[in-house]
């Protein structure tokens, strides 16, 4: 126990705690309760169907006066803009006119309505009233194209803006296809390597590993040169007279598959090879000498002994592929982007970390579900040969 202590501590500090705290952002919802506490109190018994009480208008004008020129106003505006696009500029328009000189409800109401008519519309008030807790399912629901309606029920967002379900299934489909193709290519290759003499096997393994040491961006750029419209592949095929028009090999799903399979192939070959190496070739020969057809001997005697390698390689490739970002971003079209692209978009471009965390959390849960499914089917833990 003591021996693994340092590693456990290391993992806890640099892996478990940061990821855990990141994931809590997926439900963290502090903006409204921190910045508009009195407004929330005034809206406590509001039925969400009639106009909000005048005291709410007064409370809002007081809360906003307090928040003016503080960073919390920006955070609040960003949060409410997720509920209703345009809320941000409404809040800043209002904030610019604060402090509002009103001492009672009706006067505050008139003052707010004079700034913008939208303050008479119920959805803007419901957006505040619905965020009266320090946590919110908003980001997680939005990551699955769901939202809470004004009654508090979960509903789907309109199909026009419903994107993330399709992106999640696209992510898993691409990963699955890449896993299958690497298996189909990697299996015969690994089998062939195990039949080679030690020296030649090393040579082939080095050939497989060399691209592994090259930067991923360099390899992507190389694929662009090869696959573009007037690239090497297309011009070779045209010279041979096989095609008359250049094939669209790039900036579509095909380009993403080609590059991802190339990049991930070593992750399939290495576990397969290490397992295959430990399978004694005598078993297969014994089966044939006992009258089995060579193919049956391969399929029923050899292949089952390599299942741990197939499992480990497929799992490794699949899990790495699920998080792919730069390859689809540079080689795919707008409809080929995987979920990490949107995590990066929310993290870096709009700094909507709640949404980024929620997408990451759902990806993590999805992957863990698939892993437990794998364990159920294979009936054993992941081993590397």
């Amino acid at each position, binding site marked *: 126990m003591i021996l693994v202590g340092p590693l456990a501590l290391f993992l806890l500090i640099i892996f478990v705690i940061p990821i855990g705290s990141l994931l809590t952002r997926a439900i963290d919802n502090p903006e409204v309760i921190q910045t508009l506490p009195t407004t929330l109190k005034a809206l406590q018994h509001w039925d969400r169907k009639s106009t909000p009480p005048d005291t709410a208008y007064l409370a809002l004008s007081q809360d906003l006066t307090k928040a003016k*020129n*503080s*960073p919390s*106003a*920006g*955070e609040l*505006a*960003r949060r409410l*803009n*997720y509920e209703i*696009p*345009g*809320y*941000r*500029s409404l809040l*800043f328009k209002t904030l610019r006119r604060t402090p509002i000189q009103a001492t009672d409800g009706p006067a505050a109401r008139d003052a707010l309505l004079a700034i913008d008519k939208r303050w008479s519309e119920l959805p803007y008030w419901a957006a505040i009233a619905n965020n009266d807790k320090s946590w919110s399912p908003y980001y997680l629901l939005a990551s699955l194209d769901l939202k809470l309606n004004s009654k508090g029920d979960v509903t789907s967002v309109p*199909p*026009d*803006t*419903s*994107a*993330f379900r*399709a*992106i999640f299934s*696209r992510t898993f489909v691409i990963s699955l296809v890449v896993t299958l193709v690497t298996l189909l290519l990697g299996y015969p290759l690994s089998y062939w390597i195990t039949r080679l003499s030690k020296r030649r096997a090393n040579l082939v393994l080095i050939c497989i590993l060399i691209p592994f040491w090259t930067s991923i961006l360099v390899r992507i750029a190389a694929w*662009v040169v090869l696959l*573009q*419209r*007037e*690239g090497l592949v297309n011009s070779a095929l045209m010279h041979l007279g096989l095609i008359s028009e250049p094939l669209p090999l*790039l*900036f579509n799903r095909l380009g993403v598959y080609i590059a991802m399979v190339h990049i991930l192939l070593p992750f399939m070959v290495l576990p397969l090879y290490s397992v295959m190496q430990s399978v004694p070739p005598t078993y297969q020969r014994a089966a044939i000498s006992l009258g089995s057809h060579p193919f049956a001997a391969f399929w029923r005697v050899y292949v089952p002994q390599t299942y741990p390698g197939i499992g480990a390689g497929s799992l490794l490739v699949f899990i790495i592929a699920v998080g792919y970002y730069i390859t689809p*971003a*540079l080689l*795919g*079209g*707008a*409809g080929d*982007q995987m979920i990490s692209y*949107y995590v990066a*978009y929310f*993290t*870096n*471009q*709009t*700094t*909507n*970390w709640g*949404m980024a965390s929620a997408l990451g959390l759902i990806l993590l849960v999805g992957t863990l579900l698939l892993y437990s499914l794998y364990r159920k089917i294979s009936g054993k833990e992941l081993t590397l040969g």
Partner: protein
Amino acid sequence: MKPRPLLLALALSVPFAMLGQTSAQARDLTVVNFGGANGDAQTAAFIKPFEKESGKPVISVAYNGEQAKVKAMVQSHDVVWDAVEVETGDLGRGCEEGTYENIDWSKILDKSDIVQGALKYCGVGTFVWSTVLAYNADALKTAPTGWADFWNVKKFPGKRGLRKGAHYNLEFALMADGVAPSDVYKVLATPEGVDRAFKKLDELKPYIQWWEAGAQPVQMLSAGDVVMSAAYNGRIDAAQREGRNLKVVWNGGVYDFDYWVIPTGSTNKDQAIAFVKYASSPKAQAAYSQHIAYGPISKKAIGMLSPDVLAKLPNSPANARNALFNDLDFWTDHGEELEQRFAAWAAR
């Protein structure tokens, strides 16, 4: 070989220097920009002359525009960047959320000399750039004149390059559909306008080749993958300097600024203000535009440039005539909503 004392001292001092970054006095002014050709032009036009004038060293850092880094620095009260170049969309958000120092630049700079749109409450324009229609003059016999031609696949057969995402493409689609540049954001602010833009994009969808990074459209145009593309004007200019026959259509371009901001809590705030003041001066701005085809934010600098240089700048009087100024407020309010709708549209 004996270790050289100087190297040894340097090696030993590195960890201490890193520790010392949090303490105020020791740190040099750190200027952060997007690197590349733009970074080189800034080094020549802003940083080196400012070092000479102030007599103090300036550290120049390149980044990729990730505001996550700036936000994390500010939140952890460990700000090691002083003057940072940011994109428009980040300026509004960062300013409102207190990531950048609230500085009223109109009181520091000569207001009458700064072009419209460059002075914001937290930031001041670094330069003017534009997203334009670019084409390969070797591939097209007749020159396209605007976004309507970009959408005309009969007259100009071949693929078109557009950046993945809703921003700019919705504006281009509306202009192709006959909306005047001055009305684009008025139309886009209505749900019908958004539908109209996506419907127009539908028409072109099979012909679009999407790009992600600014270097890609240049490569795609040169390789013949596309005949026309939306592209950043500075990238096209760099390709022209390398001798490629790429041309720019200024009609319907969407121009924008990059802005200088100072992260909240920077210990070199005064020095950073002095640097930004220098970089915004007519002399520095004119020098910058001679190095790269981005427009100056100083009106006097525009007057100091030769017609050859002006012909390549987004905000020279001739090129800016029929251009559209990117609406920051619109995109901060509706950006995520429209990008999500774009993702849904692309998946169909």
